[in-house]
């Protein structure tokens, strides 16, 4: 599904990712953990196509094709989804309009007909219930005046509607209380399937108790320095990141 080879990325001359390798197969959930400043969010943004990141070396293949060559909208239409760490407020554009436009853009790319209003409502109703989002929400402006938790639930709702092949969740757990975290996890888990891959970028282990990953990677100073399974995440939670960083330094 996703192959990242020797990825080097800099922002304003400063190198953030320094040779990152990662391979994610369909059906797998990977967690990328690491201390602040290790490059987790940079990785998520680069995969979605944010333009102020400079890829200086390496390549990223998505289903065998060069992902970095694609415009952000093309990535989205082909099934790449980024749940933003800080979802942007867009006054004057309402949620229903964006959801429908996003869904139809994806359907068009798949050669499908656009959804009509009735089908759209049928499609989103159960997903809104799952995310505990009320109907009034549809007429509100995208993320405007939303609490942190509402913004994150909205990201997951969009993901459920768009049914991406590759979902990248950037710190979706940050700023959530336990109840909101459970709702978000239920949403994410409902989408797990054999033909879909997920990359969870997170600082904390608590999300991984609810969305159990197949693989856990530690990102430190722009590289993946250790990989393991769920047990690694628990160990990191108990012991912090220092030991991994020391291990990496001495290797």
């Amino acid at each position, binding site marked *: 599904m996703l192959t990242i080879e020797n990825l080097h990325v800099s922002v304003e001359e400063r190198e953030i990712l320094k040779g990152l390798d990662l391979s994610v197969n369909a059906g797998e959930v990977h967690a990328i953990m690491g201390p602040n400043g290790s490059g987790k969010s940079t990785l998520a943004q680069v995969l*979605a*196509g*944010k*333009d102020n990141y400079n890829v200086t070396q390496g390549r990223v293949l998505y289903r065998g094709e060069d992902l970095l060559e694609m*415009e*952000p*909208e093309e*990535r*989205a*239409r082909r099934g790449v989804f*980024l749940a*933003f760490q800080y*979802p*942007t407020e*867009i*006054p*004057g*554009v*309402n949620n229903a*309009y*964006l959801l429908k*436009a*996003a869904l139809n*853009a*994806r359907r068009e*790319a798949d050669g499908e007909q656009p959804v009509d209003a009735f089908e759209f409502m049928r499609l989103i109703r159960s997903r809104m219930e799952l995310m505990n989002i009320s109907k009034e929400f549809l*007429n509100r*402006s*995208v993320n405007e005046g939303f609490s942190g938790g509402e913004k994150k639930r909205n990201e997951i709702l*969009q993901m459920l509607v*768009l049914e991406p092949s590759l979902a990248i969740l950037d710190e979706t757990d940050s700023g959530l209380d336990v109840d909101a975290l459970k709702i978000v996890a239920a949403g994410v888990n409902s989408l797990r399937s054999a033909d879909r891959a997920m990359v969870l970028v997170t600082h904390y282990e608590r999300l991984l108790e609810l969305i159990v990953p197949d693989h856990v990677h530690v990102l430190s100073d722009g590289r993946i320095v250790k990989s393991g399974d769920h047990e690694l995440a628990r160990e990191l939670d108990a012991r912090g990141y220092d030991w991994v960083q020391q291990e990496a330094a001495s290797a």
Partner: protein
Amino acid sequence: MNTEALSRQFAAELDRLPRSAEAAARRAAAFEAFSAAGFPTRRDEQWRYTDLKPISTAELDFAPPPPSTELVSRVAESLDQAGFDEATSRLVFIDGCYCDTLSRTTAAAGISLASLASCSEADLPVHAHAPFDGHPLATLNAAFARDGALIAAEDGARTTAPIELVFVAGGRSGLAAHPRIVIDLGQGAEVTLIQHLLDLEPGRGWFNAVTEIVQAPGSHLTLYRLQDHGTRQFHTALMRAELAEDAKLNCGYFDLGGRLVRNDFDVRLAGPGAEADLNGLFLASSGQHTDNHIRMDHIAPRTRSAESFRGIIGDRGHGVFNGKVVVHRDAQHIDARQSSDNLLLADNAEIDTKPELEIYADDVKCSHGATIGELDDDQLFYLRARGLADEEARNLLTFAFANTVLERVALPELRELVAARVAARLPNGATAGGTR
């Protein structure tokens, strides 16, 4: 147009208009006042950002011949196609001439609706004859105005559906029209009025209008104007309003077309508790110039005003906002707000924005703010990351910027119409779709 040519036109026009000696003298005085000063130039502080030369140097016919029956039927057809409902109380003007066959003057009880030329002078409110000191173009209108609309509401009268005034430019180039709109609301009257300005086909002419509003205590006027001319027309207009105690005025001005547009607003909050809300949206690109020039006088205590104008300025477009709030002596407990927010879509787009305050009282809450910005990169990226094409995302965000003004339109049908017209004219081309 030189002064001599203008004088000849005026002399000919004065002879044609069947009016009393008194009225003729008023016209002559107005014309003299205009001629003495001539067209304002950019040396005049009030006209610093707007150059009237394209109008003053154009050869224009100030006394256009009435529309032919053929033109009238084409206008009828086009209004029909545009979905104008026949049952609506409506006055239709073609190149400034009232068109009886397309109009319907029946209105709600206590509301009278008539073409000005059809009224006897005795029927006209006194303020319909007031001079327009400080407004040279309105003075010119006073000299040349042939016709227009009178909307009068008796005490307590209410419109049950909006009254419409439709001004159509018939496509004959080089015509100048000087319509006059007189609105007179009795105590507690409530009136909603929509002005539509449109071109039957693209032409270059000048539309120089004056709207005179007098509101008795407790009256409410909601006034919308959709200026949807082609991009070659010149459009200038003065709206002057005087509000008595607890009267409320709510305006929504949408300027989408026009080559050179200048709107003057002169609002006097003369009675305690009077309130005025002026909302505006304009699009200016491809060399269009739109200037909103406001003077808001808080004469009485406990008066409130809010001005909120938004401009979307594209390629070679130029926008101007000049808003002046004057709080008079002893006018305490005033709340006055002004905002001018502008979205620049091209490197050569230009906006001049100048809020001014003159305050002679001490218990006053005044605020003004101006913003000038471009489309937000993070918002664009967010939309593109959801699969919207770059241009679609740009249009959507541009439309969203306009939408905060559209949302204040209380009439759903009008809101949809304006939204559709805005979307059709967005600088990036294709429609942006609605958000509500």
